[in-house]
């Protein structure tokens, strides 16, 4: 019977298409996430204006405030891409710097949302107050959880880099986390427009 030795050296992972397994998997996953967020956004859009009682979006939203946090998230995509560039140049100090910056911008975004939501709550909008509360908090909540997972991944990458636990080609895991992070950003691009900027009810409200 064959005596198979489990060798030390990792496979070159020559793939049939030449595409790395993980990158293909990540794009398939992001593709499926389109359907996930699509369903949540559809629920929100469907129920726009359907609440039987207030508060309503126009009573609650502070567009100026949310614009700022949208800029923050956009900026985090920039810093993410800079982190990847640094990783590709094997400039690990800058890579860690940009990764941490991205994480902190993400935390600012989430923190801003927490503050925003507590303000809404004080103004009378909770998860179960009305349909607007239900659909708004669940949609943005799911997004926020995704951002948080992203922050964890960014900080983990940074930690692993400091502990020298990243593979020889660290640009690859950074690229993968980057794809996830940018996706979370583009979902917010849609949410910001569809939820915040499109008025509910007749024009003017």
């Amino acid at each position, binding site marked *: 019977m064959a005596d198979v030795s*489990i060798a030390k050296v990792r496979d070159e992972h020559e793939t*049939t298409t030449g595409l790395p397994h993980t990158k293909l998997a990540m794009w398939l996953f992001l593709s499926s996430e389109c359907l996930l967020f699509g369903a949540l956004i559809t629920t929100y859009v469907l129920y726009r204006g359907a609440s039987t009682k207030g508060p309503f979006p126009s009573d609650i939203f502070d567009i100026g405030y949310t614009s700022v946090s949208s800029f923050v998230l956009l900026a985090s995509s920039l810093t993410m891409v800079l982190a990847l560039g640094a990783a590709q140049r094997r400039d690990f100090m800058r890579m860690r710097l940009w990764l941490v910056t991205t994480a902190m911008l993400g935390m600012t975004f989430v923190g801003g949302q927490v503050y925003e939501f507590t303000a809404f709550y004080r103004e009378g909008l909770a998860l179960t107050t009305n349909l607007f509360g239900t659909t708004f908090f669940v949609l943005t909540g799911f997004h926020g959880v995704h951002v948080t997972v992203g922050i964890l991944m960014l900080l983990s990458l940074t930690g692993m880099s400091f502990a020298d636990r990243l593979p020889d080609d660290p640009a690859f895991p950074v690229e993968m986390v980057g794809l996830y992070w940018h996706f979370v950003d583009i979902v917010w691009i849609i949410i910001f427009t569809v939820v915040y900027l499109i008025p509910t009810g007749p024009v003017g409200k």
Partner: protein
Amino acid sequence: MASISMAADEGRGIRRPSALTGFWSWFTTVDHKKIGLLYGMTAFVFFIIGGLEALLIRSQLAGPDQTILNADQYNEVFTMHGLTMIFLVVMPMSAAFFNYLIPLMIGARDVAFPRINAFSYWLFLFGGLFLYSSWFLGGAPNGGWFGYAPNSTTDPTSGMTFYALGLLLTGIASTAGAINLGVTIINMRAPGMSFFRLPPFVWMGLVTQLLLVFSLPIITVALFELLFDRRWGTHFFDPTQGGDPILWQHLFWLFGHPEVYILILPAFGVFSEVLPVFSRKPLFGYQFVVFSGIAIGFIGFGVWAHHMFAAGLGPVANTAFGISTAIIAIPTGVKIFNWMATLYRGDLRFTAAMMFSIGGVAMFVIGGLSGVTHAVVPADYQQTDTYYIVAHFHYVLFGGAIFGIFSAAYYWWPKVFGHLLSEGLGKLHFWLMFVGFNLTFGPMHILGLQGMIRREYTYPASLGLTFWNQISTLGAFMIALSILVFTVNAVRTQMQKRPLETNDPWDARTLEWMTSSPPPVHNFDEIPVVHSLDEFWHRKYAQDKSGRLVPVQAGAADHGEPGEARGPSHAIHLPSPSYWPIIAALGLPTMAYGVIYSWWMVGLGAAVTLIGVYGWALEPSVAE
């Protein structure tokens, strides 16, 4: 097989598991073959349980005004029967066969992400156990497998909360598995194995994985919305607050319809492998079979509202979906004609595997015909919510998918276990099951058209439904008997362990038969180079001038003596066993229980999952 151990990891406290054999190795395995076996054994146990639930239903309905089950119990039993058969039997059985066979059929040594593969299995098992624990924790789900709101959102017992959480758990498992197998098929094919040299079973597998990837997120959202409505008082499906239960139906069926193609495409793949082998002819119209599979997958996303014809969407929507539903019959018909053409003038061998495939195609055609009648909207108004529909989906799901699974079992049993199932008992199994199945579900067409309504725990004698219900129950017990025959077959042949005379007992066509039966842990000593469709067949046979089969030079096929592997010519890197997949999986049902009982458990479960994921990320896939 020699037990292979390695030096343990240094100084990290807990040693990385290294055993590839032995009882505990099953908990840490990342080998696709073992994982396939785990899926298969677990799914079979759930099949027995789901079958017992069916017998309870049929016993209750054997006569009018029976009291074996009261109305509440009946609701739980039929709900769990449906959930079990769909999510805990057919889907994991397909996973079992895909996991075991796809790497072998494409000439790979494992799947793309072996630890995720293990994680998917454990999460499936835990999800199934979680769902079943509901029986002991306040009652099983009772709102039907389709969980229509507002019944599902307002039911005061906890069953539907278990439903939402249980399906979320198994859904995560299936999504991960689908991405895994999808990447495997795309990215790990042997040299020369282009897409159009893939065995049709693998093609159907690819379409199935893509259907899963795109449909599961939709039901994920639906289930979360249901969970939130039940657990935290949101208003997604609450009409008093402006919500609309029809939204549940859309989200559910947007998943639910692709789901039925997820359930049947693997069986179509099996038929496409078995029929050619036992006709000694290539699959007729391979490209048509492949393209029609893709078409079914694609169009399958466009017919969902045919489950909602009576929901009040209006004539425009109903017409559109009636048309798309009629259209989807076309690619299915293409397959059926190709299978028939494969049989035509073939050198037919009626083994048990072949009989289940032929029977499966025939039963699916019957189910498909009733399906076509559902596509006619006004006719569906009469049929919907009656036993006519129950007849339809059992003909396609039992007659199609389950027969396909048994065909696969008889066909690939020698490959997996190294011995054949008894053909005599197999044929007995087939005939008992075939007759029993038709006795059970055939009369339901009549019952439905006579007005027998679904999901009702009893019926009065005055409706004249008794006779066919009795026949149906008789049939159900025949099915049970047939499964007993199968079980006896499996156990007996396992104890006898009559060795195979050859690794290729069926004289088959595809790569998995090139290696030993069962395969060595590394699948192939040398990864074969593929030059054509049915590569293995062409290595064995050429055609002479008159088109007759002529064996190729002995030794060229090179499949060796049964049970022997010659040994690879170079070191093979296999992924190493790991604790982390099962640990990471364990955290999720813990969180699910926590959602119902206590936030502490949610935190604990999250911590366990996080630890599992970090341990996993920090561990190399191949141990140093």
